């Protein structure tokens, strides 16, 4: 809407801000900023499970709200679109949808099995110097880079 932000914040500004957010949540509440846990609690809320950690549901809502403020209010709004530009250039929608769905199911299952995702292990776990988080992070970085390479070869360099 207002076009106040650059197309992408420089990493040396965004990174330290994220670092301070990680520290901030530990300082206030002794909790990691993990996002998969927020999904688990939100789905628990909808399924009326007992013992739902409510603040993680608010955290889930907050992610949406913060994203909305930055991408549609503070920055020029890209509007309603499909997203996945690079993938859509290579594949028709009939291939893109099952790819995205399959990838998302895999990453959700993997995050639950590992006990966390890019934020919980990759950021907050490594910041705590946890050997388990370092192992998870090294593993997912390696398989993600390898998978991307395989996709690139399989599409003849198009992706």
């Amino acid at each position: 809407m207002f076009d106040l932000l650059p197309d992408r914040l420089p990493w040396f500004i965004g990174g330290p801000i994220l670092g301070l957010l990680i520290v901030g949540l530990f300082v206030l509440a002794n909790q990691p900023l993990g996002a998969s846990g927020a999904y688990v609690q939100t789905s628990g809320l909808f399924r009326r499970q007992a013992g739902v950690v409510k603040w993680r549901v608010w955290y889930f809502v907050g992610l949406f709200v913060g994203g909305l403020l930055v991408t549609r209010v503070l920055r020029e709004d890209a509007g309603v679109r499909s997203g996945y530009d690079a993938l859509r250039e290579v594949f028709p929608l009939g291939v893109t949808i099952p790819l995205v769905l399959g990838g998302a199911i895999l990453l959700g299952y993997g995050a639950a099995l590992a006990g966390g995702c890019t934020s919980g292990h990759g950021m907050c776990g490594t910041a705590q110097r946890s050997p388990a988080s370092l192992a998870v992070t090294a593993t997912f970085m390696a398989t993600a880079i390898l998978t991307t390479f395989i996709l690139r070869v399989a599409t003849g360099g198009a992706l």
Partner: protein
Amino acid sequence: MSNTTKLNVIGLIFGAMFGGVLGAMNLHEYDTIHAMLRLDEPDIFLFMASAIVVSAPLLWLLERNGFTTPLGGELRLSRSKPEAHHIKGGALFGIGWAIAGTCPAPALVMFSSGAMLSLIAIPGIFIGLHLRERQQRGVGHSGDGEHRDLVTLSK
């Protein structure tokens, strides 16, 4: 204000700030994550590394000095040993991450930015988490990352 309410407000604010940073870094775009994993540009690796460089020493100092948090007791960091499920889960997560070009937090920002294929990705993540949850039965607190036993709040 009860501690539970305070924690809810903190959750909303920290979620919004985190979502805002992810949006400002364009991490809600498939193209950003794909370019990172293609090793075309180092920016997102540097973004993650600089966040850790800032947070790790501060957390270490706070823990060493026995800092007591207002809502969660004494600050204690988790340092679990790697087990097989970490490696298996991490491996599957990485493959899915590369194919879907998003992960749990950026997927929500993707939705708020108006990218409609997030309506495929977000339910997919829920399904994946749920499939694992069904195997485990009743472990309701997975997914937070490294996490000491859940903090019990005084109401």
